[in-house]
Protein backbone atom coordinates (compact mmCIF):
# COMPACT_ATOMS: atom_id res chain seq x y z
CA UNK A 1 0.00 0.00 0.00
CA UNK A 2 1.16 3.50 -0.81
CA UNK A 3 2.51 5.25 2.28
CA UNK A 4 0.39 8.41 2.30
CA UNK A 5 3.13 10.50 3.91
CA UNK A 6 5.68 9.98 1.16
CA UNK A 7 5.59 12.36 -1.77
CA UNK A 8 6.03 11.44 -5.41
CA UNK A 9 9.20 12.90 -6.88
CA UNK A 10 8.36 15.57 -9.43
CA UNK A 11 10.38 18.01 -11.45
CA UNK A 12 9.49 21.66 -11.96
CA UNK A 13 8.83 21.70 -15.69
CA UNK A 14 7.57 25.20 -16.23
CA UNK A 15 6.99 28.31 -14.18
CA UNK A 16 4.51 30.94 -15.33
CA UNK A 17 4.32 34.26 -13.53
CA UNK A 18 0.61 34.99 -13.41
CA UNK A 19 0.28 38.46 -11.98
CA UNK A 20 1.94 41.86 -12.19
CA UNK A 21 2.98 41.73 -8.56
CA UNK A 22 4.90 38.54 -9.39
CA UNK A 23 3.86 36.88 -6.16
CA UNK A 24 1.55 34.39 -7.83
CA UNK A 25 3.06 31.84 -10.13
CA UNK A 26 1.81 28.69 -11.77
CA UNK A 27 4.13 25.73 -11.40
CA UNK A 28 3.89 22.85 -13.82
CA UNK A 29 5.28 19.59 -12.48
CA UNK A 30 6.18 16.43 -14.32
CA UNK A 31 6.46 13.13 -12.50
CA UNK A 32 9.96 11.73 -12.36
CA UNK A 33 8.54 8.21 -12.57
CA UNK A 34 5.96 8.17 -15.38
CA UNK A 35 3.92 5.47 -13.62
CA UNK A 36 3.30 7.90 -10.74
CA UNK A 37 1.10 9.98 -13.00
CA UNK A 38 -1.38 7.09 -13.08
CA UNK A 39 -1.29 6.86 -9.30
CA UNK A 40 -1.90 10.59 -9.10
CA UNK A 41 -5.29 10.35 -10.82
CA UNK A 42 -7.18 13.34 -9.55
CA UNK A 43 -10.51 15.11 -9.93
CA UNK A 44 -10.94 18.90 -10.14
CA UNK A 45 -11.27 20.42 -6.66
CA UNK A 46 -8.73 18.14 -5.03
CA UNK A 47 -5.47 19.41 -3.64
CA UNK A 48 -1.90 18.25 -3.25
CA UNK A 49 0.84 18.77 -0.68
CA UNK A 50 3.81 20.45 -2.30
CA UNK A 51 6.91 19.20 -0.61
CA UNK A 52 10.22 21.00 -0.54
CA UNK A 53 13.40 19.64 0.91
CA UNK A 54 14.08 21.05 4.33
CA UNK A 55 11.18 23.47 4.19
CA UNK A 56 8.16 21.28 4.58
CA UNK A 57 4.85 20.95 2.86
CA UNK A 58 2.07 23.22 1.78
CA UNK A 59 -1.45 22.17 0.76
CA UNK A 60 -2.41 23.74 -2.57
CA UNK A 61 -5.42 23.19 -4.82
CA UNK A 62 -4.72 21.54 -8.16
CA UNK A 63 -5.04 24.11 -10.93
CA UNK A 64 -4.74 21.85 -13.95
CA UNK A 65 -7.44 19.51 -15.18
CA UNK A 66 -7.03 15.74 -15.33
CA UNK A 67 -7.75 16.08 -19.04
CA UNK A 68 -4.38 17.80 -19.39
CA UNK A 69 -2.09 14.82 -19.56
CA UNK A 70 1.58 14.68 -18.79
CA UNK A 71 1.74 17.22 -15.97
CA UNK A 72 0.02 18.75 -12.94
CA UNK A 73 -0.19 22.47 -12.27
CA UNK A 74 -0.47 24.45 -9.08
CA UNK A 75 -0.93 28.18 -8.84
CA UNK A 76 0.77 29.37 -5.71
CA UNK A 77 0.89 32.68 -3.91
CA UNK A 78 4.08 33.49 -2.05
CA UNK A 79 3.15 33.57 1.62
CA UNK A 80 4.79 31.18 4.06
CA UNK A 81 8.00 29.18 4.34
CA UNK A 82 7.24 26.59 1.68
CA UNK A 83 5.58 28.85 -0.85
CA UNK A 84 8.41 31.36 -0.57
CA UNK A 85 10.94 28.62 -1.21
CA UNK A 86 8.87 27.44 -4.15
CA UNK A 87 8.92 30.91 -5.65
CA UNK A 88 12.71 30.82 -5.52
CA UNK A 89 12.85 27.64 -7.54
CA UNK A 90 14.04 27.26 -11.07
CA UNK A 91 12.75 25.05 -13.81
CA UNK A 92 14.33 21.63 -13.64
CA UNK A 93 14.37 21.45 -9.84
CA UNK A 94 13.36 18.22 -8.15
CA UNK A 95 10.80 18.31 -5.41
CA UNK A 96 7.92 16.27 -4.01
CA UNK A 97 4.19 16.10 -4.43
CA UNK A 98 1.76 14.29 -2.20
CA UNK A 99 -1.85 13.46 -2.93
CA UNK A 100 -4.24 13.86 -4.56
CA UNK A 101 -6.03 14.73 -1.34
CA UNK A 102 -9.52 15.66 -0.28
CA UNK A 103 -12.83 15.18 -1.98
CA UNK A 104 -13.46 17.15 -5.18
CA UNK A 105 -16.00 19.24 -6.96
CA UNK A 106 -19.02 16.90 -7.09
CA UNK A 107 -18.83 16.05 -10.79
CA UNK A 108 -21.61 13.49 -10.73
CA UNK A 109 -23.90 15.95 -9.02
CA UNK A 110 -23.00 18.65 -11.50
CA UNK A 111 -23.63 16.45 -14.52
CA UNK A 112 -26.65 17.43 -16.61
CA UNK A 113 -27.02 20.73 -14.78
CA UNK A 114 -26.41 24.33 -15.65
CA UNK A 115 -23.24 25.42 -13.89
CA UNK A 116 -22.54 28.86 -12.50
CA UNK A 117 -18.93 29.32 -11.50
CA UNK A 118 -18.04 32.27 -9.31
CA UNK A 119 -14.42 32.91 -8.49
CA UNK A 120 -12.53 35.73 -6.84
CA UNK A 121 -8.86 36.54 -6.96
CA UNK A 122 -6.37 33.84 -6.29
CA UNK A 123 -9.01 31.26 -5.32
CA UNK A 124 -9.83 30.71 -8.98
CA UNK A 125 -7.34 27.86 -9.33
CA UNK A 126 -9.47 24.77 -8.70
CA UNK A 127 -12.35 26.45 -10.57
CA UNK A 128 -10.06 26.74 -13.56
CA UNK A 129 -9.43 23.03 -13.22
CA UNK A 130 -13.16 22.42 -13.21
CA UNK A 131 -13.80 24.65 -16.24
CA UNK A 132 -11.06 23.02 -18.28
CA UNK A 133 -12.41 19.63 -17.34
CA UNK A 134 -15.97 20.48 -18.32
CA UNK A 135 -15.10 22.00 -21.67
CA UNK A 136 -12.72 19.23 -22.70
CA UNK A 137 -13.92 17.30 -25.74
CA UNK A 138 -17.01 15.24 -25.17
CA UNK A 139 -17.13 16.24 -21.50
CA UNK A 140 -18.84 19.43 -22.59
CA UNK A 141 -21.98 17.51 -23.53
CA UNK A 142 -22.36 16.21 -19.99
CA UNK A 143 -23.03 19.68 -18.61
CA UNK A 144 -25.67 22.30 -19.41
CA UNK A 145 -24.98 26.01 -19.73
CA UNK A 146 -21.74 27.10 -18.14
CA UNK A 147 -21.58 30.63 -16.77
CA UNK A 148 -18.34 31.90 -15.31
CA UNK A 149 -18.04 35.04 -13.21
CA UNK A 150 -14.48 35.77 -12.26
CA UNK A 151 -13.18 38.89 -10.57
CA UNK A 152 -9.84 40.26 -9.45
CA UNK A 153 -8.83 43.53 -7.85
CA UNK A 154 -7.26 44.84 -11.04
CA UNK A 155 -6.45 43.54 -14.52
CA UNK A 156 -2.88 42.75 -13.54
CA UNK A 157 -4.07 40.35 -10.87
CA UNK A 158 -6.19 38.17 -13.15
CA UNK A 159 -4.91 34.63 -13.39
CA UNK A 160 -4.70 32.59 -16.58
CA UNK A 161 -5.06 35.61 -18.86
CA UNK A 162 -4.44 33.68 -22.10
CA UNK A 163 -6.94 31.04 -21.17
CA UNK A 164 -9.56 33.66 -20.33
CA UNK A 165 -9.20 35.00 -23.88
CA UNK A 166 -9.51 31.51 -25.36
CA UNK A 167 -12.58 30.78 -23.26
CA UNK A 168 -14.22 34.01 -24.35
CA UNK A 169 -13.92 32.92 -27.95
CA UNK A 170 -16.04 29.83 -27.34
CA UNK A 171 -19.77 30.05 -27.87
CA UNK A 172 -20.58 27.31 -25.38
CA UNK A 173 -19.28 29.32 -22.44
CA UNK A 174 -20.60 32.50 -20.89
CA UNK A 175 -17.53 34.20 -19.50
CA UNK A 176 -17.79 37.33 -17.36
CA UNK A 177 -14.51 38.74 -16.19
CA UNK A 178 -14.59 41.74 -13.92
CA UNK A 179 -12.08 43.83 -12.02
CA UNK A 180 -12.69 46.04 -9.02
CA UNK A 181 -10.88 48.82 -10.80
CA UNK A 182 -9.66 48.83 -14.37
CA UNK A 183 -6.71 50.60 -15.92
CA UNK A 184 -6.04 52.48 -19.17
CA UNK A 185 -6.05 49.34 -21.28
CA UNK A 186 -8.91 47.50 -19.57
CA UNK A 187 -11.98 47.19 -21.76
CA UNK A 188 -13.93 44.64 -19.73
CA UNK A 189 -16.32 44.90 -16.84
CA UNK A 190 -15.62 46.91 -13.72
CA UNK A 191 -17.26 46.14 -10.44
CA UNK A 192 -17.29 43.71 -7.56
CA UNK A 193 -18.18 40.07 -8.08
CA UNK A 194 -21.52 40.20 -6.15
CA UNK A 195 -22.71 43.11 -8.31
CA UNK A 196 -21.76 41.28 -11.50
CA UNK A 197 -23.57 38.17 -10.28
CA UNK A 198 -26.68 40.30 -9.84
CA UNK A 199 -26.25 41.72 -13.31
CA UNK A 200 -25.67 38.36 -14.99
CA UNK A 201 -28.50 36.93 -12.90
CA UNK A 202 -28.07 33.24 -13.76
CA UNK A 203 -31.28 31.25 -13.58
CA UNK A 204 -31.71 28.89 -10.69
CA UNK A 205 -33.44 26.36 -12.96
CA UNK A 206 -31.56 23.09 -12.86
CA UNK A 207 -28.52 25.11 -11.83
CA UNK A 208 -25.68 24.72 -9.35
CA UNK A 209 -23.44 27.57 -8.22
CA UNK A 210 -19.82 26.75 -7.48
CA UNK A 211 -18.30 29.59 -5.47
CA UNK A 212 -14.73 30.01 -4.39
CA UNK A 213 -12.99 33.16 -3.30
CA UNK A 214 -11.94 35.32 -0.38
CA UNK A 215 -14.32 35.23 2.62
CA UNK A 216 -15.51 38.78 2.02
CA UNK A 217 -16.49 37.98 -1.57
CA UNK A 218 -18.33 34.87 -0.48
CA UNK A 219 -20.14 36.77 2.23
CA UNK A 220 -21.59 39.30 -0.22
CA UNK A 221 -22.13 36.86 -3.08
CA UNK A 222 -24.22 34.32 -1.19
CA UNK A 223 -27.16 36.70 -0.61
CA UNK A 224 -27.29 37.35 -4.34
CA UNK A 225 -27.67 33.66 -5.04
CA UNK A 226 -30.24 33.23 -2.31
CA UNK A 227 -32.19 36.05 -3.91
CA UNK A 228 -31.92 34.33 -7.27
CA UNK A 229 -33.55 31.34 -5.61
CA UNK A 230 -30.61 28.96 -5.36
CA UNK A 231 -31.05 26.45 -2.56
CA UNK A 232 -28.26 25.69 -0.12
CA UNK A 233 -27.91 22.23 -1.62
CA UNK A 234 -27.10 23.87 -4.94
CA UNK A 235 -24.41 26.22 -3.73
CA UNK A 236 -21.02 24.57 -3.45
CA UNK A 237 -17.86 26.04 -2.01
CA UNK A 238 -14.39 25.01 -0.93
CA UNK A 239 -12.92 25.67 2.52
CA UNK A 240 -9.40 26.49 3.56
CA UNK A 241 -7.80 25.51 6.83
CA UNK A 242 -4.36 25.04 8.21
CA UNK A 243 -3.35 21.50 7.36
CA UNK A 244 -0.40 19.23 7.98
CA UNK A 245 -1.02 15.56 7.24
CA UNK A 246 -3.80 16.06 4.67
CA UNK A 247 -5.28 12.67 5.52
CA UNK A 248 -7.43 13.36 8.55
CA UNK A 249 -5.04 12.31 11.27
CA UNK A 250 -3.06 15.24 12.61
CA UNK A 251 -6.17 16.83 14.06
CA UNK A 252 -6.07 20.52 13.20
CA UNK A 253 -8.34 21.15 10.20
CA UNK A 254 -11.56 19.73 11.54
CA UNK A 255 -14.77 21.67 11.38
CA UNK A 256 -16.95 19.77 13.79
CA UNK A 257 -16.37 16.09 13.16
CA UNK A 258 -15.40 16.63 9.52
CA UNK A 259 -11.82 17.06 8.44
CA UNK A 260 -11.43 19.68 5.74
CA UNK A 261 -8.47 17.77 4.31
CA UNK A 262 -10.20 14.41 4.07
CA UNK A 263 -13.95 15.04 4.07
CA UNK A 264 -13.56 18.40 2.32
CA UNK A 265 -12.43 20.84 1.14
CA UNK A 266 -15.60 20.94 -0.97
CA UNK A 267 -18.88 21.29 0.86
CA UNK A 268 -22.33 22.45 -0.14
CA UNK A 269 -23.81 25.22 1.95
CA UNK A 270 -26.37 22.73 3.18
CA UNK A 271 -23.55 20.55 4.48
CA UNK A 272 -21.76 23.51 6.02
CA UNK A 273 -24.91 24.46 7.86
CA UNK A 274 -24.72 21.16 9.66
CA UNK A 275 -21.13 21.77 10.72
CA UNK A 276 -19.85 24.10 13.39
CA UNK A 277 -18.92 27.60 12.19
CA UNK A 278 -15.28 27.17 13.22
CA UNK A 279 -13.40 28.05 10.05
CA UNK B 1 0.18 36.90 35.58
CA UNK B 2 -0.24 36.35 31.89
CA UNK B 3 -3.87 37.27 32.14
CA UNK B 4 -2.79 40.67 33.29
CA UNK B 5 -0.76 41.37 30.19
CA UNK B 6 -3.31 39.73 27.93
CA UNK B 7 -6.11 41.72 29.50
CA UNK B 8 -4.24 44.95 28.91
CA UNK B 9 -3.30 44.01 25.38
CA UNK B 10 -6.88 43.04 24.55
CA UNK B 11 -8.22 46.28 25.96
CA UNK B 12 -5.92 48.16 23.61
CA UNK B 13 -6.52 46.03 20.53
CA UNK B 14 -7.78 47.81 17.45
CA UNK B 15 -7.93 51.06 19.36
CA UNK B 16 -6.39 54.25 18.07
CA UNK B 17 -3.71 55.52 20.43
CA UNK B 18 -5.72 58.58 21.36
CA UNK B 19 -8.74 56.45 22.21
CA UNK B 20 -6.91 54.16 24.56
CA UNK B 21 -8.44 53.99 27.94
CA UNK B 22 -6.68 52.95 31.05
CA UNK B 23 -8.00 49.71 32.36
CA UNK B 24 -7.38 49.14 36.02
CA UNK B 25 -7.03 45.57 37.16
CA UNK B 26 -6.83 44.49 40.76
CA UNK B 27 -4.16 41.96 41.63
CA UNK B 28 -3.83 40.08 44.86
CA UNK B 29 -0.07 39.79 45.13
CA UNK B 30 2.41 37.90 47.28
CA UNK B 31 5.98 39.04 47.50
CA UNK B 32 7.10 37.19 44.39
CA UNK B 33 4.01 38.37 42.52
CA UNK B 34 4.91 41.96 43.23
CA UNK B 35 8.38 41.27 41.86
CA UNK B 36 6.78 40.09 38.65
CA UNK B 37 4.60 43.17 38.57
CA UNK B 38 7.70 45.31 38.92
CA UNK B 39 9.33 43.47 36.02
CA UNK B 40 6.25 44.04 33.88
CA UNK B 41 6.20 47.69 34.84
CA UNK B 42 9.91 48.06 34.11
CA UNK B 43 9.33 46.42 30.78
CA UNK B 44 6.43 48.72 30.06
CA UNK B 45 3.74 46.12 29.68
CA UNK B 46 1.28 48.38 31.46
CA UNK B 47 1.42 51.47 33.61
CA UNK B 48 1.53 51.62 37.38
CA UNK B 49 -1.90 53.23 37.55
CA UNK B 50 -3.38 50.36 35.57
CA UNK B 51 -2.92 47.87 38.39
CA UNK B 52 -4.28 48.07 41.89
CA UNK B 53 -2.07 45.85 44.00
CA UNK B 54 -3.55 44.19 47.04
CA UNK B 55 -0.48 42.94 48.87
CA UNK B 56 -0.57 39.82 51.00
CA UNK B 57 2.32 38.54 53.10
CA UNK B 58 3.25 34.97 52.32
CA UNK B 59 4.29 32.05 54.50
CA UNK B 60 5.22 29.97 51.50
CA UNK B 61 3.28 27.46 49.53
CA UNK B 62 3.21 23.71 49.46
CA UNK B 63 5.18 21.83 46.86
CA UNK B 64 2.57 19.35 45.69
CA UNK B 65 5.00 16.96 44.09
CA UNK B 66 7.24 16.97 47.14
CA UNK B 67 4.25 16.35 49.34
CA UNK B 68 3.29 13.35 47.28
CA UNK B 69 6.79 11.92 47.52
CA UNK B 70 6.78 12.54 51.25
CA UNK B 71 3.68 10.39 51.72
CA UNK B 72 5.04 7.59 49.58
CA UNK B 73 3.26 8.38 46.34
CA UNK B 74 -0.21 7.83 47.77
CA UNK B 75 -3.17 9.56 46.24
CA UNK B 76 -4.38 12.53 48.26
CA UNK B 77 -8.14 12.61 48.46
CA UNK B 78 -8.68 15.40 50.95
CA UNK B 79 -6.51 17.68 53.03
CA UNK B 80 -6.49 20.56 55.45
CA UNK B 81 -3.88 22.74 57.12
CA UNK B 82 -4.03 22.96 60.84
CA UNK B 83 -1.41 24.51 63.10
CA UNK B 84 1.61 23.96 60.92
CA UNK B 85 0.46 20.47 59.98
CA UNK B 86 -1.09 19.17 56.80
CA UNK B 87 -3.65 16.51 57.54
CA UNK B 88 -4.66 14.34 54.63
CA UNK B 89 -6.90 11.49 53.71
CA UNK B 90 -4.99 9.42 51.22
CA UNK B 91 -5.40 6.19 49.32
CA UNK B 92 -2.94 4.81 51.85
CA UNK B 93 -4.80 5.93 54.96
CA UNK B 94 -4.63 9.17 56.97
CA UNK B 95 -1.33 11.03 56.88
CA UNK B 96 0.07 14.09 58.58
CA UNK B 97 3.06 16.09 57.41
CA UNK B 98 4.66 19.18 58.91
CA UNK B 99 4.00 22.16 56.67
CA UNK B 100 7.57 23.38 56.87
CA UNK B 101 8.81 20.07 55.47
CA UNK B 102 6.87 20.39 52.24
CA UNK B 103 7.20 24.07 51.39
CA UNK B 104 8.47 24.73 47.90
CA UNK B 105 12.23 25.20 47.68
CA UNK B 106 11.82 28.72 46.42
CA UNK B 107 9.72 29.60 49.48
CA UNK B 108 12.12 28.17 52.03
CA UNK B 109 14.86 30.61 51.09
CA UNK B 110 12.57 33.45 50.02
CA UNK B 111 13.93 36.95 50.64
CA UNK B 112 10.82 38.75 49.49
CA UNK B 113 7.88 37.04 51.13
CA UNK B 114 6.34 40.42 51.92
CA UNK B 115 5.03 42.50 49.03
CA UNK B 116 7.51 45.04 47.71
CA UNK B 117 4.92 47.38 46.29
CA UNK B 118 1.23 47.57 47.04
CA UNK B 119 -1.73 49.89 47.11
CA UNK B 120 -3.52 48.07 49.84
CA UNK B 121 -1.90 45.69 52.32
CA UNK B 122 -3.73 42.87 54.02
CA UNK B 123 -2.48 41.01 57.07
CA UNK B 124 0.60 41.43 59.19
CA UNK B 125 4.08 40.99 57.77
CA UNK B 126 5.20 37.42 57.29
CA UNK B 127 8.17 36.19 59.29
CA UNK B 128 11.49 35.97 57.49
CA UNK B 129 12.38 32.75 55.74
CA UNK B 130 15.97 31.66 55.31
CA UNK B 131 17.39 33.76 52.48
CA UNK B 132 20.98 33.24 53.56
CA UNK B 133 20.75 29.72 52.24
CA UNK B 134 19.33 30.70 48.87
CA UNK B 135 22.47 29.98 46.86
CA UNK B 136 23.64 26.92 48.78
CA UNK B 137 22.40 24.61 46.09
CA UNK B 138 24.03 26.65 43.35
CA UNK B 139 27.35 26.82 45.19
CA UNK B 140 27.33 23.09 45.67
CA UNK B 141 26.63 22.59 41.98
CA UNK B 142 29.33 25.08 40.94
CA UNK B 143 31.85 23.01 42.87
CA UNK B 144 31.21 19.95 40.70
CA UNK B 145 33.31 19.21 37.66
CA UNK B 146 32.35 20.43 34.23
CA UNK B 147 31.40 16.91 33.14
CA UNK B 148 29.31 16.30 36.25
CA UNK B 149 27.44 19.53 35.59
CA UNK B 150 26.88 18.64 31.96
CA UNK B 151 25.70 15.15 32.94
CA UNK B 152 23.16 16.66 35.32
CA UNK B 153 21.93 19.20 32.80
CA UNK B 154 21.55 16.46 30.19
CA UNK B 155 19.74 14.16 32.58
CA UNK B 156 17.28 16.84 33.63
CA UNK B 157 16.59 17.98 30.08
CA UNK B 158 15.91 14.42 28.99
CA UNK B 159 12.84 14.46 31.18
CA UNK B 160 11.40 17.42 29.32
CA UNK B 161 8.67 16.57 26.82
CA UNK B 162 8.27 20.08 25.43
CA UNK B 163 4.75 20.62 26.74
CA UNK B 164 5.62 24.28 27.36
CA UNK B 165 4.01 24.31 30.79
CA UNK B 166 7.07 26.06 32.29
CA UNK B 167 6.92 28.79 29.70
CA UNK B 168 3.19 29.23 29.94
CA UNK B 169 3.28 29.48 33.71
CA UNK B 170 6.24 31.85 33.87
CA UNK B 171 5.22 35.44 34.59
CA UNK B 172 8.27 36.70 32.72
CA UNK B 173 7.61 34.63 29.60
CA UNK B 174 5.12 36.74 27.76
CA UNK B 175 6.51 37.13 24.25
CA UNK B 176 3.65 37.10 21.74
CA UNK B 177 5.55 34.52 19.71
CA UNK B 178 8.20 32.54 21.53
CA UNK B 179 11.45 31.94 19.62
CA UNK B 180 10.62 28.24 19.71
CA UNK B 181 7.61 28.81 17.54
CA UNK B 182 9.11 31.10 14.97
CA UNK B 183 9.32 29.50 11.58
CA UNK B 184 11.19 32.14 9.59
CA UNK B 185 13.88 31.39 10.57
CA UNK B 186 13.36 28.33 12.69
CA UNK B 187 15.72 28.63 15.64
CA UNK B 188 15.14 25.27 17.20
CA UNK B 189 13.53 22.00 16.11
CA UNK B 190 10.14 21.13 17.52
CA UNK B 191 10.83 17.48 18.16
CA UNK B 192 12.20 15.59 21.10
CA UNK B 193 15.77 15.66 19.84
CA UNK B 194 18.08 15.99 22.83
CA UNK B 195 19.88 19.05 21.53
CA UNK B 196 16.65 20.80 20.60
CA UNK B 197 15.25 20.33 24.06
CA UNK B 198 18.51 21.52 25.58
CA UNK B 199 18.58 24.57 23.37
CA UNK B 200 14.96 25.39 24.09
CA UNK B 201 15.46 25.13 27.83
CA UNK B 202 18.81 26.86 27.80
CA UNK B 203 17.45 29.80 25.85
CA UNK B 204 14.36 30.08 28.00
CA UNK B 205 16.45 29.95 31.15
CA UNK B 206 18.90 32.45 29.78
CA UNK B 207 16.09 34.85 28.90
CA UNK B 208 15.51 35.04 32.64
CA UNK B 209 18.63 37.06 33.39
CA UNK B 210 17.41 39.84 35.64
CA UNK B 211 13.84 38.61 35.18
CA UNK B 212 13.39 35.42 37.17
CA UNK B 213 11.68 36.23 40.46
CA UNK B 214 11.99 32.69 41.82
CA UNK B 215 8.23 32.29 42.16
CA UNK B 216 8.60 28.56 41.57
CA UNK B 217 5.78 28.40 39.01
CA UNK B 218 7.79 26.62 36.34
CA UNK B 219 8.95 24.01 38.79
CA UNK B 220 5.53 23.43 40.25
CA UNK B 221 3.80 23.04 36.87
CA UNK B 222 6.38 20.78 35.25
CA UNK B 223 4.68 17.41 34.88
CA UNK B 224 7.99 15.60 34.56
CA UNK B 225 9.74 17.20 37.52
CA UNK B 226 12.62 18.88 35.69
CA UNK B 227 14.91 20.65 38.17
CA UNK B 228 14.69 24.05 36.52
CA UNK B 229 15.41 25.96 39.68
CA UNK B 230 18.94 24.60 39.84
CA UNK B 231 19.66 26.65 36.73
CA UNK B 232 17.47 29.67 37.33
CA UNK B 233 18.99 30.26 40.72
CA UNK B 234 22.42 30.47 39.12
CA UNK B 235 21.19 33.19 36.84
CA UNK B 236 19.83 35.01 39.85
CA UNK B 237 23.12 34.57 41.70
CA UNK B 238 25.19 35.85 38.79
CA UNK B 239 22.97 38.84 38.43
CA UNK B 240 23.37 39.66 42.09
CA UNK B 241 27.08 39.04 42.26
CA UNK B 242 27.97 40.67 38.97
CA UNK B 243 25.54 43.56 38.88
CA UNK B 244 24.11 43.84 42.37
CA UNK B 245 20.64 43.27 41.02
CA UNK B 246 17.82 41.11 42.26
CA UNK B 247 15.04 40.84 39.71
CA UNK B 248 12.04 42.97 40.49
CA UNK B 249 13.27 43.94 43.93
CA UNK B 250 12.64 47.65 43.55
CA UNK B 251 10.64 49.98 41.37
CA UNK B 252 13.55 52.36 40.97
CA UNK B 253 15.92 49.73 39.53
CA UNK B 254 16.48 49.50 35.83
CA UNK B 255 16.57 46.03 34.29
CA UNK B 256 20.18 44.90 34.79
CA UNK B 257 20.70 44.11 31.13
CA UNK B 258 19.57 47.60 30.24
CA UNK B 259 22.49 49.35 31.88
CA UNK B 260 26.17 49.17 32.61
CA UNK B 261 28.29 50.17 35.57
CA UNK B 262 31.69 51.38 34.45
CA UNK B 263 33.26 51.09 37.88
CA UNK B 264 31.93 47.84 39.19
CA UNK B 265 31.26 45.57 36.22
CA UNK B 266 34.01 43.03 35.83
CA UNK B 267 36.03 42.93 32.66
CA UNK B 268 37.36 39.39 32.90
CA UNK B 269 35.01 37.97 30.28
CA UNK B 270 36.46 40.22 27.61
CA UNK B 271 38.96 38.61 25.29
CA UNK B 272 42.15 40.53 24.65
CA UNK B 273 44.63 38.78 22.40
Amino acid at each position, binding site marked *: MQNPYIPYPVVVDKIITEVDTKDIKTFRFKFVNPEDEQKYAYIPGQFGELSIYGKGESPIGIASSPTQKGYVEFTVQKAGVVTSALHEMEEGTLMGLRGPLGNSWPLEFLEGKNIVIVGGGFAFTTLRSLINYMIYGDNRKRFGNITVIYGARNPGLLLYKDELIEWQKRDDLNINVTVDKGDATWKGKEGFVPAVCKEVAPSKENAVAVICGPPVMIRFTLPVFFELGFSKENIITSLEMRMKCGIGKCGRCNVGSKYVCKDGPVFSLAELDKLTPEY | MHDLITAHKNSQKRVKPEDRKKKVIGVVARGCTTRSLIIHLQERQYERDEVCIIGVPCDGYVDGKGLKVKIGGADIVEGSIDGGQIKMKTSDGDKTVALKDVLADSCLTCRFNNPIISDIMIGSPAPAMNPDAEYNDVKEFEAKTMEERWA*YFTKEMEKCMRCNACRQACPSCYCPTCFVEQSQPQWVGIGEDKSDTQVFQFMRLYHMVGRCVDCGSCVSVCPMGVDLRKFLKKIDKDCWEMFGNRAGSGMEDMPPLGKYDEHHDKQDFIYNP
Partner: protein
Amino acid sequence: MARRKFATLKSFLNYIGVEGDRTIFTWVSASEGDRWAQVIKGATEKIKALGPANKMVKTIG
Protein backbone atom coordinates in the same frame (compact mmCIF):
# COMPACT_ATOMS: atom_id res chain seq x y z
CA MET C 1 23.78 45.91 27.49
CA ALA C 2 25.50 43.42 25.25
CA ARG C 3 28.50 43.13 27.54
CA ARG C 4 26.38 42.11 30.47
CA LYS C 5 24.62 39.56 28.32
CA PHE C 6 27.95 38.07 27.34
CA ALA C 7 29.25 38.02 30.86
CA THR C 8 26.20 36.11 32.07
CA LEU C 9 26.07 33.87 29.01
CA LYS C 10 29.65 32.76 29.52
CA SER C 11 29.07 32.06 33.15
CA PHE C 12 25.79 30.23 32.50
CA LEU C 13 27.32 28.06 29.80
CA ASN C 14 30.06 27.05 32.19
CA TYR C 15 27.49 26.28 34.83
CA ILE C 16 25.58 23.80 32.70
CA GLY C 17 28.86 22.16 31.72
CA VAL C 18 29.60 23.72 28.34
CA GLU C 19 32.96 25.43 27.96
CA GLY C 20 32.16 29.12 28.27
CA ASP C 21 35.33 29.82 26.33
CA ARG C 22 33.51 28.81 23.21
CA THR C 23 32.05 32.29 23.31
CA ILE C 24 34.43 35.14 22.77
CA PHE C 25 33.68 38.77 23.39
CA THR C 26 35.81 41.76 22.64
CA TRP C 27 35.79 45.16 21.04
CA VAL C 28 37.20 45.81 17.63
CA SER C 29 36.78 49.05 15.76
CA ALA C 30 36.21 49.06 12.02
CA SER C 31 39.56 50.80 11.67
CA GLU C 32 41.53 48.20 13.65
CA GLY C 33 42.33 45.71 10.90
CA ASP C 34 45.35 44.28 12.66
CA ARG C 35 43.55 43.80 15.91
CA TRP C 36 40.69 42.12 14.05
CA ALA C 37 43.13 39.64 12.51
CA GLN C 38 44.69 39.00 15.91
CA VAL C 39 41.35 38.45 17.56
CA ILE C 40 40.23 35.97 14.94
CA LYS C 41 43.56 34.17 15.04
CA GLY C 42 43.50 33.96 18.82
CA ALA C 43 39.86 32.92 18.84
CA THR C 44 40.49 30.17 16.32
CA GLU C 45 43.37 28.86 18.39
CA LYS C 46 41.30 28.89 21.55
CA ILE C 47 38.43 27.03 19.91
CA LYS C 48 40.81 24.53 18.30
CA ALA C 49 42.37 23.86 21.66
CA LEU C 50 38.93 23.03 23.06
CA GLY C 51 38.38 20.48 20.32
CA PRO C 52 35.16 19.79 18.44
CA ALA C 53 31.96 20.87 20.16
CA ASN C 54 29.78 17.91 21.02
CA LYS C 55 27.39 19.40 23.50
CA MET C 56 24.07 20.80 22.34
CA VAL C 57 25.05 19.83 18.83
CA LYS C 58 22.35 18.39 16.67
CA THR C 59 22.68 15.27 14.62
CA ILE C 60 20.13 14.40 11.97
CA GLY C 61 18.79 10.95 11.19
